[in-house]
């Protein structure tokens, strides 16, 4: 398994990995000195593939970019010196949050800290599901076209919907979880053409996930028959 991950370094440098594989590799990279040594020169080679053609940018593009930049806040610098290994996800996050706190003022700290902890934690948990040796993966057809792939492990799941027909105007796909008492809870809307992998956690004792098509903005309870049901 670890040999597999090392071998991804070329594909990763080329961007030839999907969102989940990217996270799994980045998690590995944080702990692998060999990969850290190899990656920069491969990225430099890849950059040469793309950097060798020039196109003259239209003048209005410059104006648009400058206008957007004028109203875009920059990320605050990281306080931990670069090149140091991450000790624990949380300590690194807190270091970043502390530096942002200086910029935002005390009031902003709790919100930023929470958001950062949430993001860091989330990508760690996504990688954890994908690398769990006991994970289950199933693929099933979706009514109307396309497939749903679900990988679940440790109370969390990754759901990938592929090739689904675009929902009609004013309608959207919505994801639900079903509980043992048959009640149904919304996990959010997926848009008219879901294409990204959705991460779901806190599955607890949920018995299934399901997808329906609902009105734009989503419904409180499903109003249509599911196009796919994924038993857990």
């Amino acid at each position, binding site marked *: 398994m670890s040999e597999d991950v090392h*071998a*991804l*370094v*070329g*594909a990763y*440098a*080329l*961007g*030839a*990995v*999907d969102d989940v*594989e990217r996270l799994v590799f980045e998690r590995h990279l944080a702990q692998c000195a060999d990969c850290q040594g190899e*990656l*920069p*020169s*491969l*990225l*430099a*080679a*890849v*950059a*040469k*593939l*793309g*950097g*060798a*053609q*020039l*196109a*003259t*940018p*239209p003048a209005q*593009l*410059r104006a*648009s*970019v*400058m206008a*957007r*930049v004028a109203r*875009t*806040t*920059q*990320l*605050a*610098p*990281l306080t931990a010196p*670069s*090149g140091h290994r991450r000790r624990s996800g949380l300590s690194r996050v807190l270091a970043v949050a502390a530096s942002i706190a200086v910029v935002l003022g005390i009031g902003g700290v709790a919100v930023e800290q929470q958001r950062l902890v949430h993001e860091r934690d989330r990508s760690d948990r996504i990688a954890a599901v994908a690398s769990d040796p006991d994970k289950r993966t199933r693929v099933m057809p979706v009514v109307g076209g396309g497939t749903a792939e679900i990988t679940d492990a440790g109370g969390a799941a990754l759901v990938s919907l*592929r090739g689904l027909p*675009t929902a009609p105007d004013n309608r959207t796909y919505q994801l639900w979880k079903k509980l043992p008492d048959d009640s149904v809870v919304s996990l959010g809307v997926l848009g008219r*053409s879901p*294409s990204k992998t959705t991460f779901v956690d806190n599955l607890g004792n949920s018995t299934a996930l399901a997808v329906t098509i609902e009105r734009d903005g989503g419904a409180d309870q499903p109003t249509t028959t599911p196009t796919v049901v994924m038993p857990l």
Partner: protein
Amino acid sequence: MTGREGSPLRLVPDVPTPPVTPDLDDVLRLVARSDEAAYEVLYDAVMPRVLGMARRVLRDPSMSEEVAQEVLVEVWRSATRFDRSKGSAMTWMLTIAHRRAVDRVRSEQALGAREERVAVRDAAAAPFDSVAEEVETRLEHEQVRLCLGGLTDLQRESIELAYYKGYTYKQVGELLDVPLGTVKARMRDGLVRLRDCLGVER
């Protein structure tokens, strides 16, 4: 010849100075400190390459401009994240650009829009701003072309399908009917060979 009101007369004709290529690593460091003048220098130095790359991957000119714009704004937003020990400023920016272009290609693919879109062939790029730049890019272009030519067919095809079309290694394996382990290995050893041929510095 009189100068404009208030400005000194020039007795000696201006000698045109060759454009100085700024060290982008230094410029980016200034940008990280919110230096907007430095950002304008960065934009002028880098946008032609970012746009050129977006066009190569996306083909469609207006989509390429959208992505190029997002990339340059992202460079401003995350300039503090640039870490010189991990590579040059140009590599960092072109890596962001490629990632955005590929994300865009893949989401267009998911929408099925790609099949419907008429393939827009790259029109000959508008004239370069300086002869020096044009020559430099032609040389680099030649160098890349030659080095790609030194790869095995499988190395070159996997790299080109991934880089210029945004395919994942799994999709490349399906397209070329090659086992996944082999695709990963060829991407890696192909890039190593490319790197050595191009003589890239970090």
